[in-house]
C-alpha cells in the first residue's frame, strides 16, 4: 500500500470537523497521536469560532485499557488533563488511527468518570479497518483495509508536521 500523505489528510480532517464545532464543544485528543492532532486543530477550529478559547484536553487511557491483565501498565503513562467540566459538553474525540475500537472504548469510559457529556463524536485521521467492537468513527479523512499483520503509526517531525510509518508486526 502507498502510504497516504499525513499532512494532506490533516487538512481534509480539519475541513470535515469545522462544521461540527458549536457552542459547548470541547476537543479531546487521545495520547499521543490524537493529542498532536488536537494541538494543531485547535487554532484552526478556534479561529472560525471567533476565538481561540475552545475547551480542550488530553486523555491517556492506560488506566482503562482492557489488556492490563495480559500486558501490565504501559511504561510511559502520561497524565490525562481535562481542565473543563465534561458535564453536558459536546465532546469531539480525536485519534490518529482507528483500528479495533478498544482504545475508544477505554477513552469513553474515562471521559464518563469526569462527568456526563451531552454527546461524543469520534474523528480520526485514518480508519484502517479491523474493528472488534460496535464502535466506529463518524469522521475519518481516509478509509482503508489493512491486514492485522501490519501496524500503521502516525509520527511527528521536529517541525510539527506529520508522517506515517507502516511496519510488519513482529
Amino acid at each position, binding site marked *: 500500500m502507498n502510504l497516504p500523505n499525513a499532512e494532506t489528510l490533516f487538512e481534509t480532517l480539519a475541513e470535515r470537523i469545522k462544521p461540527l464545532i458549536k457552542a459547548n464543544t470541547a476537543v479531546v485528543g487521545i495520547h499521543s497521536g490524537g493529542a498532536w492532532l488536537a494541538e494543531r486543530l485547535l487554532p484552526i477550529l478556534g479561529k472560525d469560532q471567533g476565538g481561540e478559547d475552545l475547551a480542550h484536553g488530553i486523555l491517556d487511557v492506560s*488506566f482503562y485499557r482492557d489488556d492490563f491483565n495480559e500486558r501490565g501498565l504501559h511504561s510511559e503513562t502520561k497524565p490525562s488533563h481535562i481542565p473543563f467540566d465534561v458535564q453536558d459538553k459536546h465532546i469531539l474525540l480525536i485519534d490518529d488511527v482507528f483500528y479495533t475500537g478498544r482504545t475508544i472504548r477505554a477513552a469513553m469510559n474515562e471521559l464518563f*468518570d*469526569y462527568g456526563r457529556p451531552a454527546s461524543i463524536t469520534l474523528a480520526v485521521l485514518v480508519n484502517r479497518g479491523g474493528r472488534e467492537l460496535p464502535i466506529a468513527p463518524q469522521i475519518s479523512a481516509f478509509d482503508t483495509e489493512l491486514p492485522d499483520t501490519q501496524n500503521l503509526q502516525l509520527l511527528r517531525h521536529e517541525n510539527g508536521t506529520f508522517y506515517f510509518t507502516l511496519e510488519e508486526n513482529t
Partner: protein
Amino acid sequence: MQNPQLTDDGELKHLLSIEGLPKRILNQILDTAESFVGVAEREVKKVPLLRGKTVCNLFFENSTRTRTTFEIAAKRLSADVITLNVSTSSQSKGETILDTIDNLTAMHADMFVVRHAQSGAAHMIAKHVAPHISVINAGDGSHAHPTQGLLDVFTIRKYKPDMHNLRVAIVGDVLHSRVARSEIHALTTLGVPEVRVIAPKTLLPQDVEKLGVHVYHDMNEGLKDVDVVMMLRLQNERMTSAMLPSAQEYFKTYGLTAEKLAEAKHDAIVMHPGPMNRGVEIDSAVADGTQSVILPQVTYGIAVRMAVMSILAGN
C-alpha cells in the same frame, strides 16, 4: 544474587526496599504516580485497573496514615480491600505469620501490604507466596519503609524538579528510622548530589557515612543553604532509654524552629513523615508555616501507592 524484588526480566514484582532498585524503576513509579494525582480531582475518583483483585493490608504493627492511604489507594484502583490488624486477631491465638498468609491466599488474595515490627518480615512473606502474588513492605522494624521514601522524593520532585541540583538535610533519629534509610537510598539513587544527616551521635548508625551522606551534629551548620529539610519523628520510647536527656533538651538542640530554618534557603521546603511530635522535633509555627509541605506529602502518598500497586499487579 538476584534481587528478590524483581522478575527474571528485571521488572518490579514485590516492593520490599528501595535499596538495590535501579533508577529506571524509581522513575517509572514516580512518573506513573504523576498520572494518578489528577484522579483525586475528578468526579469519579477511581480507575478500573485492579477491578476483581483483592488486596490484603496486614498490619502487625499500629499505623493510621500508612494503613489508611494504602486502603484508599487500593480502593481508587477499584480493588477489593481487606485490612487486618493482626495484633488483635488470630496471631494472638498463636497462628504463625505464614499460616495467616496461606489462609488469606486460600481466600484468593492477590497482593499483600505488610507492616511488621520485625525487620525482614515482608521479605520472608515475599519468598513464601505463590508466583502470582505481590508483596509491598509498609514498614518493617528499623529496616525499610519504601513507599514513604518514594512519596517523599515524589513530593521533593513536585516542589524542586531539578533533583541534580539539591541539598537535602534529614534531621533526627536516623538510627531507628526505617523512613530515613529509605529516603537516603531514594535520594542517592535519583542523583541528589548532597544528602546530609543532622543528629546527635547517639541517634546515628555507626557507619552512616557509607550510605553516601554528610554528617552534622549541629543544626545551624547542617541546615545552612539546604533546599529541603526532612524531619524525623522522635520515638518517645527512645527518650527513656537514656539516649537523650529530655524532650525539652532535644527540642532546644534539634527541634526545627523558624530561627533554625532561617539558615536554610529562603524557599526551602519542610517535610515530616508523621505522626509529628509538636514541640519535640518540630515547632508548631514551622509545621503549619508556609514552607511546610507535610500535608501535601500525605496526599501524594496515595498517588505513589496507587502507582506501586498498579505496576506490581501488571508485572
